[in-house]
């Protein structure tokens, strides 16, 4: 039997135990809740925190009429978590054909010790659909943005105007062309969000701590016309193959505004599959490649001399096909058919005959310094400023500078040798002859539309007068005569007046020769191979530049064939002036430029 005191004692003990337990729990709770509050909160927030970038949408690139040339699409990238892959052997066998990957490579990735590996990034939707349907454990997909270029080019595995547009690399950075030059405009600014996520990684609503909205990139509209670009690419692709050339370049530019309407080069590439290609093909030769232009420079020599009043149209220069400056002998390209030259010729004859001796004499009549300054005024030796990355400046030596050779430099420059230019510089220079003497800045960006829908028209620099209007008109007339009556006759087209100039220049490169270094004991000569740098036989750049219609020029075109297969004295399968005669009517029809002459039979070659 229990006494009353026993009961109280038990109750007290129980109370005491309960109090101790409660105190312990309370103390522990207080420890976690008060003392350890901050570190625990930090751990919890870290576990829940979700901080991610919100990528800005890259702007589109369209042609002058709105044809989509570059856009971005969301594609799936396929990854694997190797520890979760149940049967790597069969998974590799199933995935390999779908991903067009090597089975062994795939198996190696699936059995990798890494917890997470990419299998293939940015796959086509059909491929991602196939992989999704396989429903393989340990294989997953993540969406990623890919830049795509929808308009196909004329040649297999090319996209239209690839070297004008460039491409975007896997990190989303523009490379080459407009993609690189206008990267800031196109890319926009990415945003970020700091929020909390649940156990399966979904963002918890109403948990956003910090939000910075992305600013999408602007859509860029080019001056390039996709239709005209196609016409140019068709013609260039044809001549590229016919001539077995190293490369071909074509430019069509509005002479008044400097807007480039078409700019094509071959070899070209598919901007959607740039990863496997030789990077050399990415740069745009029209702006990046500097070369000796040859006779097309004679128009600038004549312009400079006429503008400075150093010569008149009636002045005559003796051409005996032999101009000696120091040890160097300057001859004409037609030295085999006219070995003694053409007698006393005018500046007009120099352009008609593409006469080297006459051009050199005009250059010397103008004076070394004035010729050099005139070439600089025409924009040679400095980049034109076109919005295509990688533009070269070309090289024009001052004849009296450290790299110049006095009269020899001036005489050679006068007919386009001893200096280097880019195709775009030449087009800009000829445009000045066609527009009354103003140097325009070639440009390919017409304008851009910001994400709020506002269109901004590009404002190229104000054209700069580089010669008197009368001089430009006079040279334009002389160039028209060069096509109507001169050696550029193959370029004449029915119904239109054309002002133009052909140009052929040798290309320098390494030349290996056998040099006798002595004789052996039996008297036999000993030869050794010697390599030096000089003009290589058969290596040429052949070009034709035109202004159409010559009565009131609207467009300037340049067609350049780089290192065609040649035979004889620079014979080739299709000369640029022949190509021009095939292409020009299409361009004029496309641009709806009406004829300025009664239709007449094409002049016989």
């Amino acid at each position: 039997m229990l006494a009353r005191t026993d009961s109280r004692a038990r109750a007290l003990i129980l109370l005491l135990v309960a109090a101790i337990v409660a105190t312990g729990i309370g103390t522990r709770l207080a420890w976690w809740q008060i003392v350890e509050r901050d570190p625990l909160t930090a751990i919890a927030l870290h576990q829940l925190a979700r901080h991610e970038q919100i990528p800005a949408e890259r702007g589109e690139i369209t042609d002058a009429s709105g044809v989509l040339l570059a856009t971005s699409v969301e594609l799936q990238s396929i990854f694997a978590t190797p520890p979760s892959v149940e049967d790597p052997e069969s998974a590799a066998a199933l995935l390999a054909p779908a991903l067009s990957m090597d089975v062994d490579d795939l198996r190696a990735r699936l059995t990798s010790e890494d917890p997470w590996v990419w299998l293939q990034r940015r796959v086509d939707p059909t491929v991602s659909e196939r992989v999704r349907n396989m429903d393989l454990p340990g294989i997953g997909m993540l969406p990623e943005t890919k830049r795509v270029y929808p308009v196909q080019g004329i040649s297999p595995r090319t996209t239209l105007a690839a070297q004008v547009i460039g491409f975007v690399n896997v990190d989303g950075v523009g490379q080459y062309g407009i993609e690189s030059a206008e990267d800031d405009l196109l890319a926009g600014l990415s945003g970020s969000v700091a929020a909390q996520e649940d156990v399966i990684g979904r963002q918890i609503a109403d948990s956003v701590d910090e939000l910075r909205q992305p600013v999408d990139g602007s859509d860029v509209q080019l001056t390039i016309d996709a239709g005209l670009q196609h016409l140019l690419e068709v013609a260039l692709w044809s001549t590229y193959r016919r001539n077995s050339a190293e490369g071909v370049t074509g430019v069509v530019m509005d002479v008044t505004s400097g807007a480039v309407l078409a700019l094509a080069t071959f070899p070209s590439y598919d901007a959607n599959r740039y990863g496997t290609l030789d990077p050399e093909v990415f740069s745009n030769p029209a702006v990046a490649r500097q070369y000796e232009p040859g006779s097309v420079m004679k128009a600038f020599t004549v312009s400079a001399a006429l503008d400075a009043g150093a010569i008149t149209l009636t002045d005559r220069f003796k051409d005996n096909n032999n101009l000696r400056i120091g040890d160097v002998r300057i001859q004409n390209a037609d030295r085999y058919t006219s070995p003694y030259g053409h007698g006393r010729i005018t500046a007009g004859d120099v352009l008609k005959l593409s006469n080297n001796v006459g051009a050199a004499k005009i250059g010397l009549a103008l004076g070394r310094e004035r010729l050099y300054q005139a070439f600089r005024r025409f924009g040679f030796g400095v980049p034109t400023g076109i919005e295509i990355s990688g533009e070269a400046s070309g090289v024009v030596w001052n004849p009296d500078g450290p790299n110049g050779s006095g009269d020899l430099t001036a005489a050679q420059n006068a007919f386009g040798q001893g200096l280097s230019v880019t195709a775009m510089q030449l087009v800009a220079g000829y445009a000045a002859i066609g527009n009354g003497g103003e140097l325009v800045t070639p440009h390919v960006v017409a304008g851009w539309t910001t994400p709020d829908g506002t269109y901004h028209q590009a404002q190229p620099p104000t054209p700069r007068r580089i010669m008197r209007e009368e001089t430009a008109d006079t040279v334009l007339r002389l160039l028209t005569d060069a096509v109507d009556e001169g050696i550029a006759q193959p370029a004449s087209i029915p119904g239109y007046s054309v002002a133009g100039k052909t140009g052929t220049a040798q290309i320098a490169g390494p030349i290996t020769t056998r040099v006798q270094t002595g004789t052996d004991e039996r008297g036999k000569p000993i030869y050794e191979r010697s390599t030096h740098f000089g003009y290589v036989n058969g290596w040429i750049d052949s070009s034709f530049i035109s202004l159409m219609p010559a009565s009131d020029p609207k467009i300037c075109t340049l067609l350049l064939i780089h290192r065609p297969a040649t035979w004889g004295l620079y014979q080739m399968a299709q000369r640029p002036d022949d190509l021009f005669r095939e292409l020009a009517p299409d361009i004029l029809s496309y641009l709806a430029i009406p004829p300025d002459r009664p239709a007449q039979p094409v002049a016989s070659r």
Partner: protein
Amino acid sequence: MAIVGARPARRFGLFGRTRPRPRTIAQPRRRAGAGRRAQRVGGVPGMLIGIAAAAGLALFHLSQSSHVAATGYEIADLHAALAELRAEQQQLLFQIGEARSPAVIQHRAKTTLQLETLSPDVVTFAQPSTKQHK
């Protein structure tokens, strides 16, 4: 066997006694403590009401939080669906761009429609009208 003089059982916690202590003391004393007891009785329902209100508020907060979370997930799902649709739209735009490629059109015109390229010589330009239109 009952324990003589044993105190009635008490519960630990907020509610205190479960039943009143037997009253053996004279009436006047009882009357003297009646006000305090009445106050004590009035305090318990108040506390209960407060607790019920707090619980109600907590439940309301919980339901609202759940509702917000659920709506958030629904919005996220809609965003995902929108993103999928946008991806499909982008693919379609890409395919339209491909189909509109001049090279593709030219190829189809020549192979499927058997069209021939028109010679530029046959293109004639309309002369501008000399008549003044009123």
